[in-house]
Every structure is written in structure tokens, then in C-alpha cells.
């Protein structure tokens, strides 16, 4: 079982109960914070003897003085029959009001440490602490794997909202949670009797009754030598038992003193186990260190967030996972298919290849690339590899290159098929690296490397034809892309831009059916979306969705896209034919790298044509008035200045800080990059101050903008590539 499995299953199973400990723990952490206000400053050099003298003067019936972990002193005693307990001021022994043993109900503490089940519950809570320690450790291993080592631990986190939350929160509280679990285990083992803290039986000592009366506290040498700051507990000799002795407990140990002579009768040093225990209590409860208690409380509460986001990540991955049917054991298979995929989409292609090979009579084994291994029966090897982030391997296949480099070269020929998106500079970089590694090691090639763009089924089928030729078999690949469950959207309004010479464009605004809480909980219905995310539209009769950038978010209450008609475009034709009241099937695809997640830095928005749509969405929701600067490029202001009235309105409302436009088909016009060049010095200034950049438009426009910006940034020793790596520059190109 790998770290991931440990983390997942312990998290899912023990996690629900750990929630109880987390929430109650967060609640209990309030106690040290509330208690801290009762702490009084201790006068420098105050001895226990002086303290006892002062308290006794103010409270003649005092029997015991304790110093609480918060730093407050409490005196207990009797006034006749009446039991007394109150805070005392160490400066003068005066009683202070407000003493209560705890500020919180006791059941919370009992729920936290024993789940209200007595000793059985204590064992249960200890088991949970052990589980929590394991979850933290496995979490650290997974975190290091995901981030690429200690040096990148603080780097930016990519992924869905739940993934990011899990990693961001986990990264901060992991150490605290690990520490609390370990200290909890130590504390449990003492309570459950597995560890003995005591130095042995207490000595049986008595004061020797003589002629003289009891010695006042101020004259007892041992009490004079002990600092009031180190005191834990001081018991006065009993008024009714003449043989009783002083008993004093400090961090270092406990002593007994003859009440008449003032001579020390016995001293026991506290054991090492006891000292460790004292530290464990401070670390676990935060008592005597309230800022630490605040941190502990936050860590406890964060378990809720971690559990929820972890559950969500697991559930999403499970829904997206493709289970390979008809897998043969590797030792018997003649065809091996290895898959590297971050989000699971490549597994669908693997299943299609797997099925096609089985239909041709092969025995096929398909598994993750991290398990790469050939056997004597292997005749063909296929590697289907997606690329993650900036050309990295998907997380589960991080060690794959190294592993392939280590294993002996097999006799079976290898075919590598890459999956990626040409929008990214490192298109299919991982597949390319794999292919090169195979060739360099001396594996034979079954087919040259092929790279599939945006999960194109057509391209995949074409590769299948090449494979059929190479194998000399009638192989046919049928890959039906998995379309997520869709929701019916209803067109409520449209705004048309007929266009002068080229194709018309329309801004379409849709409504979606409201979700009840039940649907929300189950993740049914239209997912929450933000401007910059994508909506997948499934035209009737076509299985393949088309994606459009969203010009609005869920908060706006409508879903808006800007669609240009393409002559042979099935989807755009369908959309342009819609009348208000008509319906389409749609689903949300998140675009986490592009959407602006509540950032506070200034924003430079660069868009051309319909590419202005997500940028308009950003500005529309700029309620915090973050400085946003829009550079817009079109052809003719009379025909294709989309969202113009809104944009002018946003300028007035200061949702938009500045607007620069450039139109190519008017006299003296140009492209959006010309507007950038014109504004070079201001852009340099913005980017030096940490501004982030969002670019949306056609692919050639994106390339030109990046080149132009590289030119502008040259003097700052910055580049678009560097900005991209920091997550400050993102493109949505089509």
C-alpha cells in the first residue's frame, strides 16, 4: 500500500471521527486564551515564602496555593465551613474576583479525549491520534511529491479549488497537526497507564512535634529559596493535624518540610517522563502559551476544511476514473499499455486501445506508467502519456522516467502517444521526453511519437490506422469522449453584431435551473462558475462538446458567452440559431489557471475580438475596484466593439481603471499589440509592481502579444515565460 492509499483511506475513515476531535479541540483552545487574562505579573525575585505569607495574611484559612498554567495564582482555603477559592494578586496576596476552574463546559473536554465513552473512548481517541499522525506524515510525503521537493514546498499550487484548498491549508497546519497527534499519544499513554510519571511512592513524613509553635511561611528556608514563578502547588500544613508537613511542588519536583523546624523532610525530583509530559501538555493544549493555543485552535478547525476538500478531491477523482475492463495479468499479456494522466482523461483513450487490441485477439494488460515493467511474454508496449503543468510528468508517474532508465532494455517495440494542448509552450513535453529516453536506451520503435491535441478523437483514430498498418491487423480505435453530465440552459437574451464583411457575432445570455441544497450537496446541476471558466456546449446530434469562455460568474445570476459564427461550425451555427426561450445542453469546465481568484494586484487584461468576453466578466465582478487595465483590439469600432456600452459604464464606476483600444480596419488603425507598445512605460511600471496579465483571443494574437510584452519587459529582466511560471501570466487562446 502506497502513501497515497494510506492517506486516502485513513483520511476518509478516521477523518470523520477526527473531525469531532478537531472541532472540540478548536473549541478547547479558547480556554487558555480566556484564562490568559487572569494572569498577573509576578514581581521579580518573589519567593514562595513571601507569596505564602502575603496570601495567608489576606486569607487566614488558606490551605493551598496553585500557580495555574496561565500564570494566575489561585488560593484555596476555608472560612469556617465555607470553602474558598479565588485568584490572588502575587504582589500583595489580595483576592481577585472571577475564579472558575474552566471557562468551558466539561463535556467538550470529555468528548475530545474520550468521545464520552470512558476508557474505551480514550483508547479510541488515542487510535485517532495515531491515525492523525499517519495522515500528517503521508500528507507530507504526498505534498513533497506534488510540489517537487522541499525547495518548491512554498511554490504556487495548481489544481481545482478543492485540491488547492487541501494543499494550501495542509501545507500550513501539517506540522501542528503532527505535533498535536504525537503529544496526544503521549498523554493518552500516561492516562491509560502505559507510562508511569511518578517518581515512586510518596515518602511517609511527619513533622516532629516540639515545644515551639509552627514556623511562619516567611521563615521556612526551602520556601525562601524557591521562586514563586516556578511554583506549581503549595500545601499548607493542616490546621487539625499537628504532624502534617508543608508540601511544595515545582517544575523540578516536590518537597516536604517540617512545620515546626522548617527542615526539609524529603525531596523527590520529577521524573524525565514527567518533564516530557509537562511539555506535551503545553504543546497539545496551548495552556501557558495562548498565542500557540490560537494556532492550535485554527489547526483543529482546519481539519473540517481538510476533510471536506479531501473527500471532494477523492470523490471527483473516483467519478472521473476509468476502470479498465478485461485486464490480463502482465505475465500472460502480449500487449502492455501504460498510462500517465493527471486528471484521468487519458485512461479513456487507453481503454479504447485496450478494447481494440483485445478484439484483434491480443491479451492486454493496462496499468499506470509508474508500474512500467515488461515480461518475457510482452510483444508490444504502448505508452499513453499526458503532460502536467509546465512540461512535467503527471504526479503518479513522476518517477517513471527514472524507472525506465534503470530497467533493462526489452525486446518488444514501443509506441509512445502524447496528449496535450498546443496552447502550452511545453506541448506533450513529457511524452517527448519518454520517447527520447526509450530511443536513447535502445528500445525499438513500433511507431514514431504522435501528439494528440486537446483529446482529439479524430487524431486518435488516425493514429489507430497507422498502428493497424504497423501490426498488420484490422485494428479500429473507437474513442467516445466522456461528456460530463449536462444541464439545460435557456436563452434569455441575445445581442447581435452582424459584422460588415465577415461573420456575425452574438453575445448570448442564458439562465439555468436553480439547484436545491440536495443537488448542490450531490454536485448535481450546473456547477458554480466564475468569469474565465469555460462552458461546454453539446450541440444536438453531436457527441463532442465545444468550449466557450464565460463572460459572467454564478454570482451575476446569468451565464454569458460571446460566439462568432463559423461557416461550418456545428456548434456556433446551432447557437446563432437560438431564439430567446430556446434551450441548449451545457456543463461547466473549470479553467483554474486563468480565472482571477480574488487577487489584489493590479491586472492587465489584453483581449481581441470575442476574446474580450472573459475579461469583461472579470471587470463586471470587480467589486473591490482592483486597478484593471483593458487593452482591446478589434476590426471596426462600429461593428465589433463587443460589450462597449458595458465597458464604458464600468469605466465610470471605476471597475475598470483604464481602456486602450486599437482597431485594424480603420484609417490609421492597428492591432492590440500596437496599443501595448504605445503604453510600454506604463506597462513596465505595472508589471514591476506585481501586476498580473490575462490574455484572451486567437492563437496568433496570443503569440504576438507575448512577443511584444517580452520586448517591453526586456529592460526589467523579466519575461513572459517567467511571469507564466509564477502564475502571473495566463492565456485563453482559441
Amino acid at each position, binding site marked *: 500500500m502506497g502513501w497515497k492509499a494510506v492517506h486516502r483511506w485513513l483520511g476518509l475513515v478516521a477523518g470523520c471521527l477526527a473531525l469531532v476531535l478537531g472541532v472540540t479541540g478548536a473549541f478547547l483552545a479558547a480556554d487558555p486564551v480566556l484564562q490568559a487574562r487572569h494572569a498577573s505579573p509576578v514581581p521579580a525575585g518573589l519567593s514562595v515564602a513571601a507569596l505564602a505569607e502575603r496570601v495567608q495574611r489576606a486569607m487566614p484559612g488558606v490551605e*493551598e496555593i496553585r500557580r495555574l498554567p496561565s500564570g494566575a495564582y489561585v488560593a484555596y482555603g*476555608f472560612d469556617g465551613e465555607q*470553602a474558598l477559592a479565588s485568584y490572588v494578586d502575587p504582589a500583595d496576596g489580595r483576592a481577585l474576583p472571577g475564579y472558575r*476552574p474552566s471557562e468551558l463546559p466539561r463535556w467538550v473536554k470529555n468528548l475530545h479525549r474520550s468521545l464520552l465513552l470512558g476508557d474505551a473512548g480514550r483508547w479510541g481517541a488515542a487510535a485517532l491520534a495515531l491515525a492523525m499522525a499517519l495522515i500528517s506524515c503521508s500528507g507530507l510525503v504526498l505534498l513533497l511529491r506534488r510540489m517537487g521537493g522541499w525547495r518548491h514546498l512554498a511554490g504556487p499550487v495548481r489544481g481545482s479549488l478543492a485540491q488547492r484548498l487541501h494543499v494550501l491549508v495542509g501545507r500550513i497546519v501539517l506540522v501542528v497537526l503532527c505535533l498535536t497527534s504525537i503529544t496526544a499519544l503521549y498523554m493518552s499513554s*500516561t492516562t491509560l*497507564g502505559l507510562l508511569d510519571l511518578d517518581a515512586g511512592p*510518596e515518602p511517609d513524613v511527619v513533622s516532629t512535634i516540639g515545644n515551639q509553635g509552627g514556623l511562619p511561611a516567611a521563615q521556612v528556608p526551602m520556601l525562601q529559596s524557591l521562586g514563586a514563578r516556578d511554583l506549581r502547588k503549595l500545601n499548607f500544613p493542616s490546621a487539625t493535624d499537628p*504532624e502534617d508537613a508543608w508540601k511544595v511542588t515545582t517544575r523540578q519536583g516536590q518537597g516536604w518540610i517540617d512545620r515546626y523546624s522548617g527542615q526539609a523532610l524529603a525531596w523527590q525530583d520529577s521524573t524525565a517522563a514527567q518533564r516530557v509530559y509537562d511539555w506535551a501538555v503545553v504543546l497539545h493544549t496551548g495552556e501557558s502559551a495562548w498565542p500557540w493555543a490560537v494556532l492550535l485552535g485554527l489547526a483543529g478547525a482546519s481539519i473540517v476544511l481538510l476533510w471536506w476538500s479531501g473527500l471532494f478531491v477523492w470523490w471527483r477523482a473516483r467519478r472521473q476514473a476509468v476502470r479498465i475492463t478485461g485486464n490480463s495479468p502482465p505475465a500472460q499479456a502480449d500487449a502492455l499499455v501504460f498510462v500517465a494522466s493527471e486528471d484521468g482523461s487519458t485512461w479513456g483513450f487507453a481503454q479504447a486501445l485496450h478494447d481494440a487490441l483485445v478484439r484483434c485477439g491480443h491479451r492486454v494488460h493496462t496499468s499506470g506508467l509508474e508500474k512500467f515493467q515488461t515480461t518475457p511474454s510482452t510483444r508490444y508496449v504502448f505508452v499513453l502519456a499526458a503532460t502536467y503543468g509546465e512540461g512535467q510528468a503527471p504526479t503518479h508517474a513522476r518517477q517513471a522516467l527514472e524507472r525506465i532508465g534503470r530497467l533493462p532494455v526489452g525486446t518488444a517495440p514501443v509506441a509512445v502517444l502524447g496528449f496535450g494542448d498546443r496552447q502550452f509552450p511545453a506541448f506533450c513535453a513529457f511524452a517527448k521526453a519518454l520517447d527520447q529516453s526509450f530511443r536513447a536506451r535502445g528500445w525499438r520503435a513500433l511507431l514514431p511519437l504522435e501528439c494528440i491535441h486537446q483529446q482529439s478523437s479524430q487524431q486518435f483514430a488516425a493514429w489507430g490506422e497507422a498502428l493497424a498498418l504497423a501490426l498488420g491487423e484490422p485494428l479500429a480505435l473507437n474513442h467516445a469522449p466522456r461528456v460530463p453530465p449536462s444541464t439545460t440552459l435557456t436563452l434569455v437574451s441575445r445581442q447581435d453584431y452582424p459584422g460588415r464583411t465577415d461573420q456575425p457575432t452574438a453575445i448570448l445570455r442564458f439562465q439555468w435551473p436553480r439547484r436545491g441544497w440536495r443537488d448542490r450537496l450531490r454536485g448535481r446541476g450546473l456547477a458554480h462558475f466564475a468569469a474565465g471558466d469555460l462552458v461546454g456546449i453539446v450541440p444536438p446530434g453531436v457527441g463532442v462538446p465545444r468550449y466557450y469562455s464565460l463572460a459572467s460568474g454564478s454570482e451575476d445570476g446569468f451565464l454569458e458567452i460571446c460566439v462568432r459564427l463559423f461557416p461550418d461550425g456545428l456548434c456556433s451555427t446551432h447557437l446563432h440559431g437560438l431564439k430567446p426561450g430556446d434551450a441548449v445542453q451545457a456543463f461547466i469546465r473549470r479553467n483554474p489557471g486563468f480565472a482571477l481568484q480574488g487577487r489584489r494586484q493590479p491586472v492587465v487584461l489584453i483581449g481581441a475580438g470575442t476574446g474580450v468576453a472573459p475579461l469583461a466578466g472579470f471587470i463586471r465582478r470587480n467589486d473591490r475596484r482592483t486597478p484593471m487595465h483593458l487593452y482591446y483590439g478589434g476590426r471596426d469600432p462600429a461593428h465589433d466593439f463587443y460589450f462597449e456600452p458595458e465597458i464604458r459604464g464600468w469605466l465610470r464606476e471605476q471597475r475598470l481603471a483604464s481602456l486602450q483600444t486599437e482597431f485594424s480596419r480603420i484609417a490609421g488603425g492597428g492591432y492590440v499589440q500596437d496599443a501595448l507598445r504605445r503604453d510600454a512605460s506604463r506597462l513596465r511600471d505595472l508589471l514591476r509592481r506585481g501586476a498580473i496579465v490575462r490574455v484572451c483571443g486567437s492563437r496568433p494574437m496570443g503569440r504576438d502579444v507575448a512577443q511584444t510584452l517580452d520586448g517591453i519587459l526586456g529592460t526589467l529582466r523579466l519575461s513572459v515565460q517567467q511571469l507564466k511560471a509564477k502564475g502571473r501570466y495566463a492565456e485563453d487562446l482559441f
Partner: protein
Amino acid sequence: MSKHVSRPLIASTVAAACTLALPALAQGRQLTLTTQLKNYGGDGAYLAVYLTDSKGAYVRTLWVAGGKAKYYKHLTDWNRLSGSDARRLAGVTGASVGAGRTFKVTADLADALIDAGYEIRIDAAAEDMRDSPSDVRMPLTSQSVGKSQTGKQYVQSLTYQLK
């Protein structure tokens, strides 16, 4: 009320024991103690019920409520006095007693212990609260049978019967 009363009471019973010189019965007597705790507002209390002789020396443990040995040091008097009694826990332990609850203890006593200056004591302690050594002390006399004694902090009432 009891604190002021208890001293004369002991004095008078000791006097009675000396003067009356009850006939010594061969068989023992059964002691049934009923203890009700106050609503002291804390977790279940640890209690030690034990006998001391007329000099205050430990004689025997009648009952210990609370199962964790690591907390016995909070029953300070009993823990100190009974330290040398290896059998102090033999067959006389039970669960801790919740605030406001009543519990009963029975024990067989030799006749010689009654009206002979012996005393029943209860030490009590609860988590995060004060230890209360000798929370209640009551002389073991036939005259005290059925009478109620209030403790300092934890014990609302202690009564006993002898059969």
C-alpha cells in the same frame, strides 16, 4: 453544622466506650455506608473510604472509587497513610462517582472496632478541582448510626448503619 459538633461527639463516645464497656460479641458486624456527593460541578470524583484508629493511624481501606492509579496521589491523606498496605486495593475498587450521586459501601467489621475510637474518613478529589483529604470524618460508634455528617467540599452527607 457538623464541624463544631464533631469534637464533643468524639469525646463523649470515647467516654461512653470507657465507662459502659460493652460486652464483646464474637461475630462481626456489617457496616453499610451511604454517601451522597454535592453538586460540585466537576467530573466524577475519586474517593477513598478508610478507617483510622484513635491515634489517627491507618487501619484499613473500605472502598476506593476511581480506577486510575495515577490519580490516587490526589487522595492525599489516604495515599500517604496507606502507602505501606500492599492490599489496600484488594477487592475494594470501583468507578468514580459523579457529582450529586449517592453510593453505598458495605464492609464486615470486627466488633472490637466499634465504639473504640476508630474513625471513618473519606478523601476526595476531582479533576481540575481541589484535593480534599479527609473531606469527611465520622467516628465509628453505635451512637452515630443513622446520623448524617457533612463533608468539607465533596460530600453532601455520610450516614451509616450497623447490622
